[in-house]
């Protein structure tokens, strides 16, 4: 070995323990190939490139598809959560509230009937409050349908008594209904049971539909990732072949694809998840401004106040992470299966 060769080997950190490498270097030396005079600083070697090149995967299209799918999935998941939460509130209302409607009947003193009905209610165990709506308040309840500024004093407007029920000491509503009928025949107790149950059924159906949409979106995303992976394997056929020939195991190659796709999945999921969070923040802002209207009240009754809260944000973050991980592992699985079939 020449002096210069020995110097180069020492510079590069070869020691006597690395005899095989030194022997190999000697072979190169003996061929009298010209060694480079320009010393390549070992420390200057840049970070390793990915083995699956970024431009060989339909990256941008896949990121867009994943972003859209994640956005829709986050939307479906949060709508399901909002409706489910609202449904729980409605069911809670069954235990907490009921109303008594005292209808005006010819020959009876409506005010006396209202007082009598309220008295019956107050004496019933489990009724913590019986609030009598004044005539003007009862008339105001009609304003969304009849308009404002009308004189309703000539109309036979029913009177309302709103009951606050004690959830820990439930009133026997059937018995209460009979007692009320006996004391005030023109009064009707409405515990909202049918209405709330219908809303509950509707909420369950909405949650089920949202869950189905969520699953379908994830399935569509999986199909898109699978197609993109197959296309990437076909595009990188030569790279796969070279990797095989230098001794790469199928699992190593599949992991390289997994890394590439997981990065794409994460980018798409962050964009889609971020978009979903922005959407809910915007929806909450708009809902707050719209809340005063009749439509706003109904929407709020149905979906709550559009506030997804921390749990909603956590769901979106989990969804984005899951999408990225699933994208990576799905592509790894597909590549592995493809390579094993080739083998």
């Amino acid at each position, binding site marked *: 070995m020449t002096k210069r060769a020995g110097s180069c080997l020492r510079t590069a950190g070869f020691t006597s323990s690395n005899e095989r490498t030194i022997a*190999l270097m000697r072979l190169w030396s003996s061929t009298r190939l010209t060694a480079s005079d320009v010393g*390549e600083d070992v420390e200057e070697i840049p970070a390793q490139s990915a083995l699956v090149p970024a431009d060989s995967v339909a990256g941008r299209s896949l990121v867009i598809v994943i972003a859209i799918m994640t956005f829709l999935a986050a939307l479906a998941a949060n709508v399901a959560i909002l409706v489910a939460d609202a449904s729980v509130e409605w069911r809670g209302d069954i235990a907490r509230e009921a109303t008594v409607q005292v209808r005006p009947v010819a020959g009876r003193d409506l005010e006396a009937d209202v007082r009598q009905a309220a008295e019956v209610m107050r004496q019933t165990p489990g009724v913590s409050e019986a609030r009598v709506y004044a005539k003007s308040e009862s008339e105001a309840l009609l304003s969304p349908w009849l308009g404002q500024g009308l004189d309703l004093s000539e109309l036979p407007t029913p009177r309302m008594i709103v009951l606050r029920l004690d959830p820990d000491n439930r009133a026997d509503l059937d018995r209460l209904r009979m007692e009320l009928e006996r004391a005030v025949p023109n009064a009707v107790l409405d515990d909202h049971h049918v209405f709330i149950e219908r809303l509950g059924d509707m909420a369950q159906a909405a949650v089920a539909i949202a869950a189905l949409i969520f699953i379908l979106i994830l399935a569509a995303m999986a199909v898109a990732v699978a197609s993109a992976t197959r296309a990437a394997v076909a595009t990188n056929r030569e790279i796969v072949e070279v990797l095989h020939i230098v*001794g790469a195991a199928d699992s190593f190659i599949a992991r390289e694809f997994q890394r590439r796709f997981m990065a794409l999945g994460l980018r798409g999921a962050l964009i889609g998840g971020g978009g979903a969070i922005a959407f809910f923040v915007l929806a909450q802002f708009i809902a707050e401004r719209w809340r005063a209207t009749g439509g706003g009240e109904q929407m709020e009754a149905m979906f709550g106040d559009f506030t997804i809260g921390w749990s909603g944000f956590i769901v979106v973050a989990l969804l984005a992470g899951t999408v990225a991980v699933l994208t990576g592992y799905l592509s790894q699985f597909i590549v592995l299966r493809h390579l*094993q079939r080739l083998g």
Partner: protein
Amino acid sequence: MLTFENVGLRYGVGAETLRDVNFQIAPRSFQFLTGPSGAGKTTLMRLIIMALRPTRGLINIFGKDTAALSNEEIAETRRSIGVVFQDFRLLDHLTLYENVALPLRVLGREESSYRAEVVELLRWVGLGERAHAFPTILSGGEKQRAAIARALISQPKLLLADEPTGNVDPTLARRILRLFIELHKSGTAVIIATHDLTLMDQYDEARRLVLADGRLHIFE
């Protein structure tokens, strides 16, 4: 080290490309594999590296029947074989450094553990200052040297070179041959596929494996 017994290979439904091929490659041996273009030299090389499966016969490499190897075992076996392709097969999106380091990278070794080794090997094939270059801007000779470096970096037991001097000038061809001879003397079995008679004449001690009409003829 390597045994072919009655190996035949047919592509599709046509005639056999290789017929009744029988030979053995001993450790620390050197052989030229030659024959006219299209005789099946590259096909034979691909059978050795298990990129193709024979339609009949037995191939035994490093004491293992290749037909019985799993994908993982094939990968492990290939790590003991260095291959220099006629068309280099360098990955264009990787630098020369990364191309040469590839066999060590697939072993799962940390980059810092082989960095000095790869840089030194690049220097000694005269490509030290081209470590950051991409293959697309290199000459044929430079690519050839990089491909050789990649084949040698993992210190293989068996080296296969398919027309390794086909893209270089005669002077460099002699140097490359000299390198292979020295490598063989250090304990590596070498098979060089070539139809360059001048190259073969430079090393009379090598066995000649001649492929013609799908059959292999051996001249010791």
